[in-house]
């Protein structure tokens, strides 16, 4: 008996089909003109636009096209990307005037009937270079709402067991945990177009996510952060943040629920009693 691993191959008809499908996907079918915003604040006075023509295929995303342009036509093009699969939130930009992830948008779909694609850096974010923007204040706003479970220090230092959570309690905040911090929502928000102090949909949705977490014990502490002049009441439900969110986080819903919660809090309502940690003995028993 030989110990060599047997080489595995697809059945020929399946292989043929796969190859055909992938050829179909990557066959150039259209010429598309890319108008790209070029600006280096360290050198230029004002931004200018540059045009590149590219043969695109059905499966090509905007990010693929940008990489091809960067590799073959203009290596000075500045942009940011990392995962290429809509998970890291680096590549959000304005594609034909709307905030989208470059790696999740197909060129053919973005171009529609036309053949021009206009790429700009995210609005309401300072430009670092070309398509890359500065996220410093965005992350600071996220940090400002205390995006962590607030518990007694004493208790955290001497843990006795895990915190139990039912599926209903989990369902209250799960949707908001999908946020990848791509910044599309803050860029789309009309309030943020003038109000740079505004906390923004991302931070406020995260504030709600931690407020309704059954393990959290920081109700009033966190409300004091969001219930300020440039906090959640500067949202006027224009809904653009939810419209552009690539992860279905629906920050507008979170903010409206947050406002309702703050108003009810004024009349003595509390969303939940923070769950007690299970004593070590019971926890151990459950594990067994």
């Amino acid at each position, binding site marked *: 008996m030989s110990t060599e691993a047997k080489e595995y191959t697809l059945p020929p008809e399946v292989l043929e089909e796969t190859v055909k499908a992938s050829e179909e996907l990557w066959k150039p079918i259209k010429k598309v003109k890319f108008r790209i915003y070029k600006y280096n604040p360290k050198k230029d006075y004002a931004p200018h636009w540059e045009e590149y023509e590219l043969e695109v295929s059905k499966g090509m995303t905007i990010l693929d096209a940008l990489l091809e342009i960067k590799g073959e036509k203009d290596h000075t093009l500045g942009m940011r990307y990392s995962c290429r699969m809509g998970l890291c939130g680096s590549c959000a930009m304005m594609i034909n005037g709307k905030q989208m992830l470059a790696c999740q948008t197909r060129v053919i779909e973005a171009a529609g009937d036309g053949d021009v694609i206009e790429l700009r850096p995210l609005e309401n974010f300072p430009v670092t270079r070309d398509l890359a923007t500065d996220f410093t204040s965005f992350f600071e706003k996220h940090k400002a709402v205390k995006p962590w479970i607030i518990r007694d220090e004493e208790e955290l230092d001497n843990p006795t067991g895990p915190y139990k959570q039912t599926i209903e309690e989990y369902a*209250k905040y799960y949707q908001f945990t999908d946020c990848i911090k791509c910044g599309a929502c803050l860029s789309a928000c009309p309030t943020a*177009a003038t109000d740079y102090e505004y906390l923004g949909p991302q931070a406020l949705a995260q504030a709600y996510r931690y407020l309704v977490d059954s393990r959290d014990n920081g109700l009033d502490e966190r409300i004091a952060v969001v219930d300020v002049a440039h906090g959640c009441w500067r949202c*006027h439900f224009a809904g653009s943040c*939810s419209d552009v969110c690539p992860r*279905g986080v*629906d920050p507008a819903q979170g903010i*409206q629920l947050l406002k*309702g919660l703050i108003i009810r809090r004024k009349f003595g309502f509390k969303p939940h009693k923070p769950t007690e940690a299970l004593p070590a003995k019971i926890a151990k028993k459950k594990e067994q």
Partner: protein
Amino acid sequence: MEEAREEFVEYYAKNMGGVLGWFKARVYTIERWLYGAHRITGILIVLFMLPHFYSTGWHPGLWGDFILGIIVTFHIANGIRLILAELGFVVGKPLLVKKPSQRPLSLEGSQRYLVALALLLFIVLAVIWAYYALIVQAATW
């Protein structure tokens, strides 16, 4: 020279939408239009209100009254929708299971019906007002 460049950088590198950014509604959903309209009608009502009681009972004339009424009815109808939505009544519940490209529930759930209702209420109120301002009122002028 360097100073001039800094002024440009101040403007372009900040990359803010500005006041025009409030009204950039073309690519977004209908709520963004309503937001812009709510803001503009609010400002117009304030502009009418001040002369109306600084010189008691001043009116902008027959057609002025008609237009003002339309503006106010829009602000009322949309305002009712906003009060309901902003206190978290019609925006739906957070989801536990999402579709691959999930559209937001706060916009495309029951809130869409509320938008339709608000627009309907606006039209009804506006028609009543138009009848009143242009026919009943005009007869007494």
